[in-house]
């Protein structure tokens, strides 16, 4: 397969599989290399990076929810220059394109970021994350500035504002829209009794964002690709987004709960796996079925074995 996930033209970014991690889930480098096969992915999106270093948020930042989780990290990172110097060798060895996610910037920061990014061959594209509550003119300014870059520009829109921002951001020069950042929420930490703010993740996000994607796919110019994500937890979830009009998908926290699911979705949408029959036995194309599992279906009790992949 060869799928163009950005607008055709000099900027276009082509992937072999329409599946990638969402920013913030797989780290800056190759932290998941022992747990999944990066060859199978279409691209890798880094954790959010800022021009200056950001410190981790203090206090509780992880709240378990029913079938989901609330996370607030403060987007800790040592700043763009250091992220590049620390990771460019790993990026060079990646079998797939690396897209750097740049968070919450001002136009002057974007100028400086582009100067850095455009010189780094290991970076295949930039994903610009617009902050929640951003107003239209600010979004237009940021995107116009970022669009001056040589490399393809993906723009991730915030949850509530995606409807209002999609067209202005497209006009301002985005090469692809990433829909959407997860919604923000507030939940109580059972240990401290305090309310904690953060982003809400879980399978129930998917039907909500799927509707937004379906509507926007009908509104925006047809040559502007949508990369969709939010609550993807199965190959079918991913296919639903493609059917709704996305050219590719981003998988978020499902990877934490079940690392091989990202690879399984990528194999599935990448044509590596025939859609699995209900009740079929596990096979080699099903990367999260380990030997232990396969044996357990025939004999009991199972002899635990390490996963082959």
């Amino acid at each position, binding site marked *: 397969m060869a799928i163009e996930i950005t607008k055709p033209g000099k900027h276009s970014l082509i992937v072999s599989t329409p599946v990638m991690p969402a920013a*913030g*889930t*797989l*780290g800056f480098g190759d*932290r*998941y290399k*022992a*747990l999944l096969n990066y060859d199978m992915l279409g691209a890798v999106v880094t*954790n959010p990076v800022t021009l200056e270093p950001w*410190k*981790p948020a*203090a*206090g*509780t*930042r*992880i709240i*378990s*929810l*029913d*079938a*989901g*989780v609330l*996370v*607030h*990290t403060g*987007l*800790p*990172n*040592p700043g763009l220059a250091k992220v590049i110097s620390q990771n460019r060798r790993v990026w060079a060895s990646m079998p797939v394109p690396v897209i750097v996610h740049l968070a919450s910037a001002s136009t002057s920061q974007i100028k400086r970021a582009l100067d850095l990014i455009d010189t780094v061959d290991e970076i295949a594209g930039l994903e610009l994350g617009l902050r929640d509550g951003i107003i239209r003119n600010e979004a237009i300014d940021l995107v116009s500035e970022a669009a001056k870059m040589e490399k393809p520009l993906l723009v991730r829109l915030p949850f509530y504002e995606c409807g209002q921002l999609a067209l202005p951001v497209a006009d301002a020069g985005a090469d692809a829209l990433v829909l959407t950042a997860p919604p923000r929420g507030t939940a109580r*930490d*059972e*240990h*401290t009794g305090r309310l904690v703010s953060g982003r809400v993740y*879980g*399978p129930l996000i998917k039907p909500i964002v799927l509707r937004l994607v379906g509507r926007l796919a009908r509104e925006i110019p047809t040559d502007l690709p949508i990369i969709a994500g939010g609550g993807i*937890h*199965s190959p079918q979830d991913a296919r639903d987004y493609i059917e709704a009009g996305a050219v590719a998908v981003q998988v978020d*926290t499902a*990877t*934490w*709960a*079940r*690392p*091989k699911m990202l690879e399984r979705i990528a194999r599935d949408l990448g044509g590596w796996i025939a859609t699995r029959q209900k009740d079929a036995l*596990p096979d080699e194309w*099903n990367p*999260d*079925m*380990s030997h*232990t*599992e396969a044996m*357990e*279906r025939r004999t009991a*009790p*199972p*002899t*635990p*074995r*390490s*996963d082959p992949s």
Partner: protein
Amino acid sequence: MKETQAYIERIKRVNRGYQRLELAVDRSLTAMRAGQALLVRRIDKDYDIENWDPYLRELWFPVAIQAGNIVAVERPARAHFVPGQLLSVLGPVGRAYRFRHKLRNVLLIAYEAMPAALLLMIPSLLAKQVGITLVLMGSARQYETNHLPEEVEVIQAEDNLTWSDMVMTLGWADQVFALVGQGDSLRFFGEILAIMRERHYDIPANYLFGVIQRDLPCGVGACHACALSLRGEHKLQCIDGPAFDLTELRLN
């Protein structure tokens, strides 16, 4: 770090509040050392029926490693487990505790946390003639210790987090590992540090370690939700932890 499967081979009640699960695990995990842990999630026999509640993996610290690829853990008694239950396991997570070269006496503190993360070191330290004191603070005092080796001296701290002979215990210890509960981990560390500082005017480096056990979304250093600030840098509980020198950790 690998993803493997395990199953629960035996379940035994160790005291009123906790049960001990013996897990048959992948051979590689029997090399785990004290301080390292597993990220565990129950799985169905049929991998297609996936239940996403609970969502994140739980952090399980081994309390013993036995022959036959068995790793034992302690879990709250009110959680339901059945022998034969299959588990998906990510591990090992984190770094082994680093003990002093000539360790003679170690002080273990559990504050608002059951002491599981501190138990695996006990047999090997005892074999090396290291003296062990375990201080239970706050809700950890409800943890019953009858099943621990009798060589371990167990102390119940007062409500103000002190105990009689505290100055002596501290002076006598070559190293301290203070394990705290979830939620307000950094505040708990702060309280312990304050009390230690009062009693022990100068806390040397590599003496007082805080052991933290918050939920780890990814466990592999990717999500940075477990980040802590140490001397300006940020470190990850899952990669660099669970033990950090308390004098270096930024607590607010």
